């Protein structure tokens, strides 16, 4: 057994925001030797003048709720959301202990909100120069050839249009007086 100290439980208290009903269940290990449900009750919405607010819910436990170990279960109904801030149980050690609150383990919700920057790329406060896309004009002059076809430096042969003389003369028929 985890603890030889036997406790008597009297009250349970939850600090929460709830927008609907939930079921709270308490289990202890006595009587018997296993964790058994001893209490199950409804936890109503934490409503105040029409809005859901952070509030305290307290419930008396049956007079003989006792055990070495205690286990709590909080189950919201369908479509109900609960933010649980604190849970504690009013108990005393048997046979002669004093009544006192015992905190049940609830992960702490910080009171303060912290900043988170949205992922917006920064816009610079300063202006900077950006060159326009104008091609530069050269400071120096450069030669450009005029479109004159070049004159060839070499001579080339060109045949004159003289009709060639045949090497063998042709016979001509002459007309003679008869």
């Amino acid at each position, binding site marked *: 057994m*985890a*603890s030889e*100290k036997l*406790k008597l439980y009297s009250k349970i208290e939850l600090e929460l925001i709830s927008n*609907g009903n*939930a079921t709270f269940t308490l*289990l202890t*290990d006595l009587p018997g030797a296993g*964790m058994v449900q001893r209490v199950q009750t409804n936890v109503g919405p934490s409503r105040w003048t029409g809005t859901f607010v952070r509030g305290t819910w307290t419930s008396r436990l049956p007079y003989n709720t006792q055990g*070495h*170990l*205690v*286990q*709590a*279960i*909080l*189950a*919201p*109904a*369908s*479509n*109900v*959301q*609960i*933010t*649980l*801030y604190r849970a504690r*149980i009013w*108990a005393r*050690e048997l046979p002669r202990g004093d009544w*006192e609150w*015992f905190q*049940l*383990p*609830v*992960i*702490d*919700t*910080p*009171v*303060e*909100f*912290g*900043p*988170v*920057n*949205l992922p*917006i790329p*920064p*816009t610079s406060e300063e202006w900077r120069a950006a060159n326009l896309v104008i091609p530069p004009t050269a400071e120096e002059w450069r030669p450009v050839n005029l479109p004159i076809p070049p004159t060839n430096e070499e001579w080339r042969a060109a045949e004159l249009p003289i009709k060639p003389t045949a090497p063998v003369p042709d016979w001509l028929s002459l007309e003679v007086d008869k």
Partner: protein
Amino acid sequence: MAIQKVFDYKEVTLEYRSNGPATFTLNTDMPGGSMASRVVATLPSSGGIGANRTQTIALDGVQGTMYQVLITPGAATQFIPLAGKLMLRPIGVYLDGSLTPAEQWITQPIAPGV
């Protein structure tokens, strides 16, 4: 209990320039487990594209493991977001009964005071 940390959102502050109105929308995934619009607000004109404006929008009662910010300029509006800051805190125990399976808070068997 949600495996991912659920956050509680308080407010968002935006700095921007605009020459007309725009719409701010915050989507989160809680409750329900899917991204849905939770807050819709109007971002008024900053008075011209050369003028800055800082606007704060309340987000009370909004929770989620994830968030998504949408800024939609109105017709003929030019909008330049400059910076944005979201105020949030992690919730210790957040139970959403609309999830499947429904979430529960269950302690271990505890020996109080030991």
